[in-house]
């Protein structure tokens, strides 16, 4: 499978990303990735009653990075913090069907960003 042989689900999330943009009154956020490898994801969350009331992302990266960011926000939205925290990068790629193998590591970091954002939220609360 070549680098850009993406399935329809990946292409759909790439073309029409869900929950993309800046969350103005976010309670917490986190950025993962590294500009020098070209993939950087920022996840912002708004929390009420220990649930993810709203979530948005901004990503610089390839089509896979954008699609996984979009899918991760879809999976997390409305979930309790405890549930959302359990979402793994693998869950995100499974939800999308499959990613080209080469993309699994560098472009599938949105769940890490989400987990970090939740950790930041809990830290801020203390």
């Amino acid at each position: 499978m070549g680098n850009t042989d993406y399935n329809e689900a990946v292409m759909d999330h790439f073309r029409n990303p869900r929950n993309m943009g800046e969350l103005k009154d976010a309670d917490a956020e986190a950025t993962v990735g590294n500009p020098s490898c070209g993939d950087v994801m920022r996840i912002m969350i708004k929390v009420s009653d220990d649930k993810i009331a709203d979530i948005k992302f901004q990503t610089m990266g390839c089509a896979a990075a954008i699609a996984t960011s979009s899918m991760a926000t879809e999976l997390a939205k409305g979930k309790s913090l405890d549930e959302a925290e359990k979402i793994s990068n693998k869950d995100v790629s499974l939800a999308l069907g499959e990613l080209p193998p080469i993309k699994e590591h560098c472009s599938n970091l949105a769940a890490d960003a989400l987990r970090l954002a939740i950790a930041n939220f809990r830290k801020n609360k203390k």
Partner: protein
Amino acid sequence: MRGLYLDNAATTRVDENVALSVNEVFLESYGNASSLHKVGRQARMKLEDARGKIANYLGCKSKEVIFTSGGTESNNLAIRGLAKANPLKKHIITSVIEHPCVLDAVRDLESEGYEVDYLEVDSKGLISLDDVEEKIRKDTLVVSIMHVNNEIGVVQDIEEIGRICRMRGVYFHTDNVQGFLKKKLDLGFVDLMSGSGHKVQAPKGIGILYVREGVVIEPIVTGGGQEGGLRSGTENVPGAVGLAAAIDVDFKLNKVLASRDLIIAGLLKIPGAKINGDMEHRVYNNISVSFYGIEGESLMMLLNEDGIYVSTGSACASSKLKESYVLKALKVDEMYIHGSLRLSLGADAIGEEDYIVEKIRESVLKLREMSPFKFSEENLKDVRDKKLEIRKEVLGNEEEQEDN
């Protein structure tokens, strides 16, 4: 949906007349050029006619043209073949922006004990002639410098580099895969030159190595002793005939050049856009452009959806997940390297300039909106300076381009 193929430095569509001439060989002149019967003789005649036509174009003797399987083999044969034939010379000079097939051949020799100088380039992608002169030693085997760079289209001063090598008694090889038939090259001081068919609307799987008479190389592929013993393997007569036929292809150089300059002027109006590589010494159809804060593969994918076919120097799009070493050598900022596109234009671009610019603009702005990196004023200023500089070039060369 219409498609615009703007990736002619990757490969090209075979020209109709070239295809017809190749097809004739497939169906009629199908013999083995080494066979002694009539069918073989007919194929031999086709092969030698093709060689003669290429030699005539290059202004050299027929026996100085060796057919190979393509640019990669030609470059390997030139470098490894010279090394095998001249075992006492253990030093090689090349540049950091060569094609991987040159760099890998040289690195192989390095691991066998050769010493190699990799010449740096300036921020415009040009090699310094003084550097070439300075690095030549008594035991230098060969200087290998490409004519036209595949990513940024920058053209090196091959004639002058060759002159230096000739004066110092060192062999000079040039990888001319991206310039062959498109950018005239005087072979006066060139000892070996590689060319390829599929970059010039001939088929894939055919290339040439020009070897000046008197320059001794050893083969790297042995067997039946074809091509004067320098390249064994049944002669690729259809390929050779196709390559020779490509000499007559009209590449519409002037129209494509005008298209290129229109597109560049349009792209530079997009905030955070910059052109990589020198504008003056540049092949007629190359645009290497970078956009701040976005990633090239996703840009390429969006354009693909619009039927615009280009390539990118971004790490995400490479099978090795490494960003372009050519753009790195030009010290392009990494936030720009990731957002780089290469357009290598052909006839498809003519008359479509506005559409191409508009689609790229839309896609860049869409990805910018998604990106966490906002385009800052500081960056903008840097880019604006560059834009003015390049626009001057595009709009008629009235003023000299400033050096940076």
